[in-house]
């Protein structure tokens, strides 16, 4: 039997992500564009304001996709619709592959 979507057990089964330790990331930026250095990999990534909000604010604590989408929508004055959800989902998978976030 499948639990209702808003039940605690359903929520607990959703993946949650958080940013890696803050001392693993170095930031510099100008006018909403950022160069992010990831110490463990030695790679530099060029990201925008939305990515910075995700990595340095929203994902400081473990969050699910829905929670991240809601938070980003609030911070950037966007509609938390399917388009935004799809975009954020792709970002989360990409950041995870790059080692910038990890599953809680």
């Amino acid at each position: 039997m499948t639990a209702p979507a808003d039940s605690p057990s359903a929520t607990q089964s959703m993946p949650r992500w958080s940013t890696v330790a803050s001392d693993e990331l170095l930031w510099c930026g100008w006018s909403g564009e950022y160069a992010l250095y990831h110490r463990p990999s030695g790679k530099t990534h060029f990201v925008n304001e939305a990515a910075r909000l995700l990595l340095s604010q929203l994902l400081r604590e473990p969050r699910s996709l829905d929670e991240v989408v809601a938070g980003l929508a609030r911070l950037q004055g966007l509609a938390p619709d399917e388009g935004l959800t799809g975009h954020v989902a792709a970002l989360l998978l990409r950041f995870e592959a790059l080692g910038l976030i990890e599953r809680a």
Partner: protein
Amino acid sequence: MSGAGATLRRVADLTGGEWRARLAGEGVGVRVGPFDLRLRVSAGALHEPLRRFYRDHPLLEGEHVFSCHADLREVWHLGRRNGRRIRFSVDGIAPHEDMPAEHGLAVLEWGLNLAIAMRFHSFLILHAAVLERHGRALLLPAWPGHGKTTLCAALAHRGWRLFSDEFGLLRPGTTHMLPVPRPMPLKNQSIEVIRSFAPHAELGPVIPGTRKGTIAHVKPPADSVERAQQTAPAAWIVFPRWSAGTPLSLEETGRSEGFAQLATNAFNYELLGEAAYDTVRSLVTAARCFRLAYSDLEQAVRALDALADDDAG
């Protein structure tokens, strides 16, 4: 070892006979910016052009520890590709196949470029021309084909002090550029462009048929060699792009764009890791960043002159 306070002789202080004998024999030590090179060249036809190109450079005589030993020797190939070839090696290792002997000058300079780009990682090495005016450095980072060397050669003969047409060199943690003045290789139509633009420029022999087309080198101006130990802080980072018929445009860009372009133009950015990241961040914070599009060399030079003169107040 040369004494730290000793005044060094110049290559021009050697007689022609001394130069040829040493270059073909034990080799000649030459200081090029932060690098102490020992050059050995057996191909006699190259001796006189090299003496002209390096005549203002300090001579390193006696016992010395060199940054690298560059050797260019004639070899003979028998078989399908008969004939005289030239073999370049650094510290005894030949990094590429032998080349046509008539390309010797170009092979030596390309070989020195390779040695610098591959070995000297105590520096952050940007793929950029660098020049100085009013005590401040202009960086021109650009990929091949964007007109960097032609623009650099033009500026170097119009009141800018040449640091390098190829390498923007700085120690990690600083924003001071280091001069590495060497002959500048012009390609194809650029040779006549510079002959017209700067008739007083000293050009070496024209070398046709190289892998990069026809090449002729421009001797670094004497002043740039004499002041090669004087660094300058980076003040302007200009990304040039020559394209036929393009109207002049010098547009200030964001620092984030400057960071991205500079990082991708560095030979050893990833190798140096966090030190490179910090250094590039410091560079784009300290310097103003621009995009330069042009087709008329005179207009481009005047625009950069005005940029430097205006900032100097």
